[in-house]
């Protein structure tokens, strides 16, 4: 006796069985059953297969059988077949060709319920060819007597248009007529389709604005209202005159509609469309506490708070004054138990921080980073810190010494993705801010004392610190200089196997320190260190550098090396214009003294090599010019290194065959990578569930 679908479900529910074994047995049974000529057996098999699909089994091999079941005269069999089809027919599979006729029959059938389930499936699987074939039948259905059918076909049209855009032009007007249909369901369906179309091409649906406006003012259905508000935002982007007409209804909806979802939508629309309007903003501000402090039992507190933060974000983008009032609120939100709210609060912090509040904000952010609860968003927190510090070239920072200390603190958090940005900010700020250099050197020196803990993949932070103490060593006092020297000459550096750039920075640091100090004792220590480096470090480049510096130190006159002490300075972007080009760079340099190419009357290009104007000041007769041109032309023809432009029409879009081959390669490897990455997810914790418990408690 073959199992029915219900038996399969019951079998899966039995406690002590091995699920996988059971499922495999059922699967092999299905493979046999589905080939049977009897439709009832086949349908049974398809139903069981559908349940297995929920467990992750593939249904696609049975496509043809599903098609047979679909075409059955019996309703229940047809229903099962269509349901299976909607789940498993792939968008571009060949089976769809065969199905087209079937759907055409169903669409014109007299039986409402049959057409309904056909449309349900069609919406999931229709492709471009089917769309083209079935379009006319769908248009006929627009005038069906049953509102159910009209409604469904209106929504179906969106998918048809997506697949077959040419159909849009033919049918859209017929569809738009349905906006004035007597049945509210049909209207809702049409509004949905028009909304989705407006997101693609608002100008196209603009002529329906009048009808839509009437619906906006009369409908009581909140879902329709939300869709319409979104629609009008899209339309207002292309037709600014709509704005005048919209302000009335928006204010009315905002003040009268009790549903929070509608309020939210209107507020969002106003922020998008009326950013300058004073009265609108005033009303929104009245509503805002309703969102932020709500204890409304219908909407849970945190849900509404999330939405309040979204709205606040939009408002502040419009007008920064609001930032002040809500600062404390944002800080509280940052400490909320809900991670989604914390992320939203971070976004708000990015746009509301001013130079007065910066120190406090960063302090709070750094405290948050250390909390274990924030382990998931540690990176976002640090990104926000760095963003604020470097915003607009450090516009918000007033005390750079404090800023440098903060940067060193962040280094200790050891997030590798921020290291590059961090080190570049450190270097940038020390270079630009002269007063900072002395303190920065001292702070860097202290930070470097624990240099073994600063090791990371690319050691950018370490490299930056070494650069700072080397380059600006002239700010060191004597005592600090000795300290710095002893630090960089420690043998521990070689043992720890840092990244190559660290050893490069180390050698130049040693070199610069010596130049600064110029004492014999220091000299001996530096030489010794460089000798060691040149032998012990693995990286060839670092060895080379150490040898190079060693050479310079031991052979050259130390007085001449004073140029090393000159500090790096940033260059202003307009500095280039202050430098005059040298005489050698002539203004009237003849490169090519003719038109490069001219366009002939039939559209092709004719290439020349010379330009008239470049003969310029030189007085020549036409004859002489011609002779000169010919001479240069001959010379170029014989020059093997002269690149001649190809003659003839340029064909656009011609890829080289080599490139095409490479693209294929990349596509293949990308798929391979994807497959490897999809691992089975771990099973969630075992919970005891009571499946018979009613979903809505009475």
């Amino acid at each position, binding site marked *: 006796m073959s199992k029915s679908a219900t038996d399969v479900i019951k079998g899966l529910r039995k406690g002590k069985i091995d699920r996988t074994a059971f499922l495999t047995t059922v699967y092999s049974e299905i493979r046999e059953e589905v080939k049977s000529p009897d439709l009832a057996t086949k349908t049974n098999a398809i139903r069981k297969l559908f349940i297995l699909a929920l467990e992750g089994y593939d249904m696609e091999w049975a496509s043809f059988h599903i098609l047979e079941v679909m075409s059955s005269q019996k309703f229940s069999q047809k229903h099962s077949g269509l349901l299976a089809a909607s789940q498993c027919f792939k968008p571009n599979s060949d089976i769809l060709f065969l199905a087209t006729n079937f759907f055409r029959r169903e669409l014109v059938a007299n039986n409402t319920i049959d057409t309904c389930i056909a449309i349900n499936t069609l919406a999931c699987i229709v492709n471009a060819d089917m769309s083209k074939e079935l379009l006319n039948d769908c248009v006929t259905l627009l005038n069906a007597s049953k509102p159910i059918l009209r409604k469904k076909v209106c*929504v179906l049209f969106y998918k048809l248009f997506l697949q077959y855009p040419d159909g849009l032009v033919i049918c859209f007007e017929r569809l738009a007529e349905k906006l004035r249909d007597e049945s509210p369901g049909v209207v809702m369906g049409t509004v949905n389709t028009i909304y989705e179309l407006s997101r693609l091409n608002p100008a196209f649906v603009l002529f329906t604005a009048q009808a839509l406006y009437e619906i906006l003012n009369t409908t009581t259905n909140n879902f329709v209202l939300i869709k319409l508000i979104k629609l009008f935002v899209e339309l207002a982007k292309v037709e600014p005159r709509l704005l005048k007409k919209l302000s009335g209804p928006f204010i009315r909806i905002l003040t009268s509609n009790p549903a929070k979802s509608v309020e939210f939508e209107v507020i969002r629309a106003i922020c998008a469309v009326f950013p300058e309007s004073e009265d609108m903003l005033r009303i929104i501000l009245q509503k805002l506490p309703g969102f932020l402090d709500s204890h409304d039992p219908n909407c849970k*507190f945190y849900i509404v708070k999330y939405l309040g933060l979204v709205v606040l974000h939009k408002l502040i983008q419009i007008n920064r004054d609001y930032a002040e009032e809500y600062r404390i609120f944002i800080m509280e939100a940052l400490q909320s138990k809900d991670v989604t709210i914390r992320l939203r609060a971070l976004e708000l912090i990015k746009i509301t921080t001013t130079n007065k509040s910066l120190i406090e904000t960063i302090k709070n952010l750094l405290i948050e980073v250390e909390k274990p609860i924030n382990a998931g968003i540690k990176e976002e927190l640090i990104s926000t810190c760095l963003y604020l510090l470097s915003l607009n070239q450090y516009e918000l920072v007033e005390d750079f010494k404090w800023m440098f200390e903060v940067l060193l603190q962040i280094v200790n958090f050891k997030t590798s993705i921020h290291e590059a940005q961090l080190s570049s900010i450190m270097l940038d700020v020390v270079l630009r801010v002269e007063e900072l250099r002395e303190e920065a050197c001292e702070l860097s020196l202290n930070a470097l004392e624990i240099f073994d803990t600063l090791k990371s993949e690319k050691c950018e932070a370490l490299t930056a610190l070494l650069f700072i103490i080397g380059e600006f060593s002239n700010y060191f006092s004597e005592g600090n200089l000795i300290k710095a020297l002893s630090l960089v000459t420690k043998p521990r550096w070689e043992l720890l196997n840092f990244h190559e750039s660290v050893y490069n920075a180390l050698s130049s640091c040693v070199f610069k320190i010596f130049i600064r100090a110029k004492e014999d004792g220091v000299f001996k220590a530096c030489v010794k260190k460089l000798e060691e480096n040149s032998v012990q470090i693995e990286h060839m480049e670092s060895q080379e550098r150490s040898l190079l510096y060693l050479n310079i130190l031991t052979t050259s006159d130390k007085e001449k090396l004073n140029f090393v002490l000159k500090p790096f300075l940033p260059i202003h972007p307009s500095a280039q214009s202050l430098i005059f080009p040298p005489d050698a760079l002539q203004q009237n340099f003849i490169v090519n003294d003719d038109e490069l190419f001219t366009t002939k009357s039939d559209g092709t290009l004719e290439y020349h090599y010379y330009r008239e104007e470049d003969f310029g000041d030189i007085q020549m007769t036409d004859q002489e010019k011609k002779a000169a041109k010919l001479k240069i032309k001959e010379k170029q023809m014989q020059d093997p290194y002269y690149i001649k432009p190809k003659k003839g029409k340029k064909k656009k879009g011609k890829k080289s065959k080599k490139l095409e081959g490479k693209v294929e390669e990349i596509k293949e490897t990308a798929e391979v990578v994807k497959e490897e990455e999809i691992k089975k997810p771990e*099973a969630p914790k075992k919970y005891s569930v009571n499946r018979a418990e009613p979903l809505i408690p009475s």
Partner: protein
Amino acid sequence: MISFILMVNKQGQTRLAQYYNYMTISERATLEGELVRKCLSRTENQCSFLEHHQFKVIYRRYASLYFIVGLEEEDVNELSYLEFIHNLVETLDKYFENVCELDIMFNIEKAHFALDEMVMNGSIFETNKATILGQIYALDKAN
């Protein structure tokens, strides 16, 4: 436009899955597993909105079943989708009379049909319970 609607129980077993953008079987299985894990790790007092890869996810737990709606848009009105989920559950409740997970398991075709009456192409086009129920009764008669 909704990308998918799922009903997944606390043990990670999918009871109903409707996808409005084609995804392969393995992608679906991964997605469902990851989402249910994320939902399970959240408490009652946290908000019902998540972000998962490029999807915005709205979920609600009814007894042992998580109803999950995922969208791929910007500017989503999350509260309206919460209301939609509740509408769906109330409709099923009226039809099955005190619906529970078992009802959905044993009547998967009817549950799918009810959902198809409310959402097509990822758009919610019918919210009137009476209309939807009328359709389901008509389905029963035809069977």
